């Protein structure tokens, strides 16, 4: 569905240099700290910035050669951008109907009602959460084949987040669909994504299946003496701590089986981000 190959884009103080793929029937996450290059990657995928080199393909075609009909198969929700705030939902319905041949007006209205989104209130007067819901509804209401969602759950409370994630899960049911999503809320991604890319300073540091990441990766807490003796074969990052070192392993089972008296913790996505971005490469 999406293929970025050796993309390079030089800004004055930042360089984006990445490759990533989103296959069919997959939910792929792009994670990373603020300023890592997530939104720039999204803009690159959508052809909103020009790259210095590399290839960008959507639906197997270079982005700039996509027809209007092919672009209508994309559902987009960008973190800080939507329809003009002076419009109301009742204004944007005819706009969407004319832009998207497969726009499902009834479904859209039904979901607006479900999420208590007023049809006759200016978008400017919406709360952050209401805006986030509206953006997702716009993205999923025209039977898109691919959703590109940049921080879609920002500003939503836990219940609304879960409801929206359920809607996105429903969206995937017909098959032949994919989602590329970024989020600061790692708990959303852990139970939702099939695989994830970790980006920092414009570079992809890690690409892994979510279940492998959560099942196999782990954090070892070791003293300096333990660190001297430990087999580093499955260690990827180390971070100095007052007690010694915190180590990121890709095979926690190996250390559970082979090293005694070692503190081994399951790790979550936040910890992986922390270790991959702040930790020292081994």
């Amino acid at each position, binding site marked *: 569905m999406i293929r970025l190959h050796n993309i390079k884009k030089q800004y004055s103080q930042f360089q984006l240099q990445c490759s990533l793929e989103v296959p069919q029937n997959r939910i792929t996450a792009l994670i990373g700290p603020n300023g890592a290059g997530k939104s720039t990657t999204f*803009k690159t995928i*959508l052809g*909103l*910035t*020009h790259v210095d080199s590399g290839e960008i393909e959507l639906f197997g075609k270079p982005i700039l050669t996509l027809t*209007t*009909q092919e*672009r*209508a198969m*994309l559902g*987009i929700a*960008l973190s*800080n*951008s*939507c*329809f*003009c*705030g*002076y*419009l109301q939902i009742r*204004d*944007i319905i*005819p*706009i*969407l*109907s*004319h*832009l*998207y041949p497969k726009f499902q007006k009834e479904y859209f209205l039904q979901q607006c009602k479900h999420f208590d989104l007023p049809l006759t209130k200016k978008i400017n007067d919406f709360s952050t959460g209401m805006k986030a819901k509206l953006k997702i509804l716009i993205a999923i209401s025209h039977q898109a084949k691919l959703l*590109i969602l940049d921080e879609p759950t920002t500003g939503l409370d836990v219940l609304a987040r879960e409801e929206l994630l359920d809607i996105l899960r429903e969206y995937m049911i017909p098959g032949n669909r994919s989602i590329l999503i970024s989020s600061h809320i790692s708990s959303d991604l852990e139970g939702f994504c099939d695989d994830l890319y970790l980006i920092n300073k414009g570079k992809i540091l890690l690409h892994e299946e979510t279940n492998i990441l959560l099942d196999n990766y782990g954090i070892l807490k070791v003293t300096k003496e333990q660190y001297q003796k430990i087999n580093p074969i499955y260690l990827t990052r180390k971070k100095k701590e007052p007690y010694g070192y915190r180590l990121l392993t890709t095979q926690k089972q190996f250390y559970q089986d082979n090293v005694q008296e070692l503190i081994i913790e399951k790790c979550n996505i936040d910890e992986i981000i922390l270790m991959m971005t702040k930790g020292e490469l081994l």
Partner: protein
Amino acid sequence: MKGLLIKDWKLLKNQMRFMLILFTILIVISFLDNTNHISFMTSYLSFLFSNFVLSTLSYDSYDNGMLFLLSLPISRKIYVQEKYLFSLLLTFGSWLISLLLRLLIFPLQFSWMEISEICFESLIYLIFVLLFLAYSIPLHLKFGNEKGRMLSFGFLGLLAFGIFTIVRIDNWQSLFYMVNRISLKFVIIITTFLCIIFLGISYLLSLWIIEKKEY
């Protein structure tokens, strides 16, 4: 493109109350205006609506809106085409309505001669408004709203100063008589032709600007 036209129309509709107030003021001024040679109504209304086209550019870029708009199933080319089409529709529409209103409000006061004079003057105003848009749209796309608006009004000021200087040097009346001697049809054809050329150049320039722009 239809979706974008609807969007701009909806934005315009949201400002309808403001427009109605201005429209009322305009009609009152027209009634008070006994000097028939002033086509204030036509020029003012067309200029007002042409400014609204520039406002839609501001609305589009409000809160990073262009990012979202260009991620919709439209190309940058279609976006520019829609802006020019909307400009033409709005300017012609408002010009025609105001001209008709002016003629309808005072139908009996005018002789055919005066009516043709009013139509001619209105047409010149229309061309000025279109020329204003022709240089303002690329300026807005290139420099954004605040800078673009300042530059386009600055340019308008310079243009007015230039015309004023020419009038002072050449004597306005002699210039007017000179224009009068030229066939009316010829003046209209030449100015319309020049207007089309300028709008064409403006469109190509806008297209080039938006294709190069990064969001």
